[in-house]
């Protein structure tokens, strides 16, 4: 079974990109399956099953950090994918805080960016953008050629080695490039002992365990305070 991780901020078009790629792969006889990791709710599994008739599963992290939840469940997702008969398992992540990246060494890593997000978007995405193998840029049909080229330049400046692919999430134009790349992706037999490309954040303070009140006396564990710079005033 092949494996790919997909990251990106909410509403950039991760699911649309995966839908177009999965549809192309299914047409050439590859059986894709998708596990969507999210925080509170997601109907994406229904979309994958209804639109493409491919196996899809949703994992909701609820009160746990969605990225920690994702790492803790990659193996389980792979077991499910194999049992579902998948040739390619797509791990789609929630993409919330951009402190970390879900990408794994040795597993193809795809990050989706929205060209409407402005030229600072690639830098703001942190390790998810800088450590990806493929950066998919969406909504390119809405911006001028110049802005597309400036955006690609901004992507290349945070990740000089990534392949940049423009995909129109509505028409699917560009997904063909991903399909061609997917043919060269390696088989991954298991993810046990595999290593994340970037560390996950520490999250062991009172708020991690359900505290909602504001104030120093409710804060315990791993608490960092804002450092006020002189030039801030």
């Amino acid at each position: 079974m092949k494996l790919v991780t997909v990251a990106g901020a909410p509403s950039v078009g991760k699911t649309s990109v995966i839908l177009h790629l999965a549809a192309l792969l299914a047409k050439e006889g590859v059986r894709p399956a998708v596990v969507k990791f999210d925080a509170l709710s997601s109907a994406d599994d229904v979309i994958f099953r209804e639109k493409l008739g491919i196996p899809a599963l949703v994992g909701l992290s609820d009160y746990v950090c969605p990225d920690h939840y994702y790492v803790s469940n990659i193996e389980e997702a792979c077991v499910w994918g194999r049992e579902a008969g998948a040739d390619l398992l797509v791990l789609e992540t929630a993409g919330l805080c951009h402190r970390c990246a879900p990408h794994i060494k040795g597993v193809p890593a795809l990050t989706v960016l929205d060209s409407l997000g402005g030229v600072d978007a690639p830098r703001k995405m942190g390790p998810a953008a800088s450590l990806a193998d493929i950066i998919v840029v969406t909504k390119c049909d809405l911006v001028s050629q110049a802005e597309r080229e400036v955006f690609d330049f901004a992507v290349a400046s945070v990740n000089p080695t990534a392949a940049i692919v423009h995909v129109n999430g509505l028409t699917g134009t560009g997904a063909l490039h991903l399909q061609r790349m997917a043919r060269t992706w390696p088989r991954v037999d298991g993810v046990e002992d595999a290593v994340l490309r970037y560390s996950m954040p520490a999250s062991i303070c009172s708020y991690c365990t359900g505290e909602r009140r504001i104030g120093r006396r409710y804060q315990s564990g791993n608490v960092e305070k804002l450092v006020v710079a002189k030039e801030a005033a």
Partner: protein
Amino acid sequence: MILNIPDGLRSVTILGGTDKFGAPEPVPSVELRPGDALALVGPTGSGKSELLSDIEQLALGDTVSGRHVLVNGDAAPPTATGLVATLSQRTNFVMDATVARFVTLHAESRGKDARALLPRVLETANTLCGEAVRASDPLQMLSGGQARALMIADIALISAAPVVLIDEVENAGIHKFRALEVLTDSHKIVVTATHDPVLMLMNAKRLVMRSGGMNRLVEVSGQEAECAESLRRIDEVMLHARERLRMGETLTPEDISL
């Protein structure tokens, strides 16, 4: 990977596949060279956008049409990108910047001399539309015509892409003939999907699309060239009338005499 053609683009060849019904396309191949302009014509649903998409994705027989798009006579690497610049009705500026800042950012991203390019881009843009685009104008304040004019001048002078695909950019209030000239003069291959008769005849060749297939390749005849000249005058009159009325002036029959 960004497509790197060491000795430059010499040709793009479209090899026909099949139409919607699986029949071979009547036009087996179309070859385009730098400076060539091709119009795609046909009713909605005839396959114009699909052909543009095949060119953009450098089809290797792996799209619905089964077409192949060759670069300098050979299949491009499967993941090559960067060959094509696109311009459509939906294209907008989303950046919050002045014209000068925008041109500078683009030029710098391409490793080009922004200070030398800015006046050239402005000068070219201002041959395409009635109202002058100024360096200090915010992009978001430009009219539709000014924005299109700036986009075309920018693609011609700064963009690296040797092929320009234009999808349905019509009636934007720009000098269409001049716009096409600006692009072909900078040795781009320009493919325009259009329903506008003036735009169709401005291209030396037009490809008639039908049922998803390349149906007929038509060269502009001597008679059509004369028609093009008349239509061009009508178009200029429309543009002139539009600019006068927009500027608060009045029109007389003499103003719009052909």
